């Protein structure tokens, strides 16, 4: 039982890792906590649903469409909203992201209603291995996330874009002096982040029913993971996501499953109280 929960927790953690990574990248480059991550996951799930169920495309193609859709939404939100507020400080950006979140969520609600939807995938038998039940969806999720993480890591490490992103995250003005344009980097970061969130939306749609609040349900675990990793640290976000996933699933051993979300909240609170820098740095307390 405990081993099974641990395994489920790792997969849940991987699922949270993509949005947590997205959150942390935006925070690193643009210096604000983007509360629209949850709604962008929702948008990704619906985009893939339309492609998969309405247009009859296979799930992989649907995932690509979802990634492109959410990337476009991310770039558009930067162009229309966040860029105009960039000099206004992080509180304005934070509150604006709440507004963007409301807009995206309700565009989805307007178009698709409150009903629960699911992808058109053939149900498959779970595999048994060493006494653990492993679903087909869990294998898909783990594989897709791992591939995404390797790709993002390579991008950040070796590509010019990755170098530019790290430079802006480190010191935006110095990067500007060296000819790295913040605006372009911001746009490209949004595109990358949107693609990650779109893929995360597809995976969460495999995990549970798609409704307008699907992304919102992940919001607190996502933030918990990113904060645990120290906001702004990509590697930390992934580690944090795994810890949160395992903690949430394993909590079923001690508290009612209805209260799973409280675990994330408790982790955030405890962490901020006792180790305000997260596990990997970043400063949370002011003055």
């Amino acid at each position, binding site marked *: 039982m405990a081993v099974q929960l641990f395994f489920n927790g790792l997969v849940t953690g991987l699922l949270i890792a993509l949005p947590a990574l997205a959150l942390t990248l935006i925070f690193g480059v643009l210096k604000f906590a983007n509360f629209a991550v949850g709604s962008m996951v929702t948008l990704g799930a619906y985009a893939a649903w339309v492609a998969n169920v309405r247009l009859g495309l296979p799930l992989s193609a649907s995932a690509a469409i979802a990634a492109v859709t959410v990337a476009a939404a991310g770039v558009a939100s930067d162009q229309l909203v966040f860029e105009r507020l960039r000099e206004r400080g992080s509180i304005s950006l934070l509150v604006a992201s709440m507004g963007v979140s409301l807009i995206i969520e*309700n565009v989805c609600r*307007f178009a698709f209603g409150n009903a629960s939807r699911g992808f058109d995938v053939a149900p498959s038998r779970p595999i048994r291995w060493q006494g653990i039940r492993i679903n087909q969806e869990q294998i898909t999720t783990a594989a897709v996330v791992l591939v995404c993480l390797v790709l993002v890591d390579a991008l950040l490490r070796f590509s010019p874009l990755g170098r530019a992103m790290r430079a802006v995250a480190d010191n935006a003005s110095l990067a500007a002096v060296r000819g790295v344009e913040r605006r372009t980097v911001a746009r490209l970061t949004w595109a990358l982040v949107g693609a990650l969130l779109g893929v995360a939306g597809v995976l969460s749609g495999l995990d549970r029913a798609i409704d307008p609040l699907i992304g919102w349900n992940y919001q607190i675990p996502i933030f918990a993971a990113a904060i645990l990793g120290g906001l702004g640290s990509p590697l930390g976000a992934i580690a944090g996501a795994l810890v949160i996933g395992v903690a949430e699933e394993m909590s079923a051993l001690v508290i009612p499953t209805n209260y799973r979300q409280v675990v994330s909240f408790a982790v955030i609170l405890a962490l901020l109280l006792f180790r305000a820098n997260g596990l990997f740095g970043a400063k949370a307390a002011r003055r």
Partner: protein
Amino acid sequence: MIAYLITITILVCVAALVGLALNLQWGLAGLVNFGVVGFVAIGAYAAALLAPEIGWLPAMAVSAALSAAFSAGLALLAIRLEENYLAIVTIGFGEVVRLVILNEPWLTNGALGIADIPRPFAALGDAVGGDAVFLVFAVALVALAFVTLEGMARSPFGRALRAIRDDATVTSALGKNVFALRVRAFAVGGAVMGIAGALHAYYLTYIDPGQFTPIVTAYAFMAVIAGGRGSNVGLLVGAGSIMALLEGTRFLKDFITVIDGVQLSALRLGLIGVGIVLLLILRPQGLAPEPRRRTSDVLPDRTTRS
């Protein structure tokens, strides 16, 4: 039609109370509270559960006290956090309150909610007819809250809060206890949110967890941004009119049949998001900006440069 107007006005009163409370916490003291709905829900449930036992006025007092206690508790734990982190802690608090309400049916009756909440002045209201008596009560509450909070904003306490908002380091160097002032601001705001929750419960006489979604929080933020952060007058005038318009769309469904109820509510909630974003971009100082004192007000014979 009159009944519509009365209903809208009472709902605006509830929202205005929440807005006034957030205006103290965020507008005046600069503390982001994304968990507004949690404090409103605590107030509403306290009032709903206690009013039949101890009467509506003591129940409302308990609502305010309980909500203030939770605010103070959360503030003691989290108020020193930088705004991005404070935002997520408060949003988490709001979610926890919702989960507890949903999952502790022995106390809150779970998803079914609580019905038959007694309404203040019910006998008088029946005699006059309609909700007019309750409307007067609601408006009086808003007026009371406004006078109290405006008084606070003009008091040394309010000045210290504005100073902290603008530069906490300097304020602290001037000998103000930044931490204690922030906790107090959060607690007072929480009390007003509790009262707003009680008013909500008394008016609807039925509450369930579905009424306390993060939309309540978004609404309050829009109200504060619209009015101008830190300006109570702006909150009532500017936000009041915008909220009245938005509340008015609730009744559009009786006239428009092309889109269904879910779509209409999605439209309204989406408009709140659009409102927040547009106001932040186009008019960040709000419709009635916070009055700023210039050097010339204090030293009239000096140059007029502030």
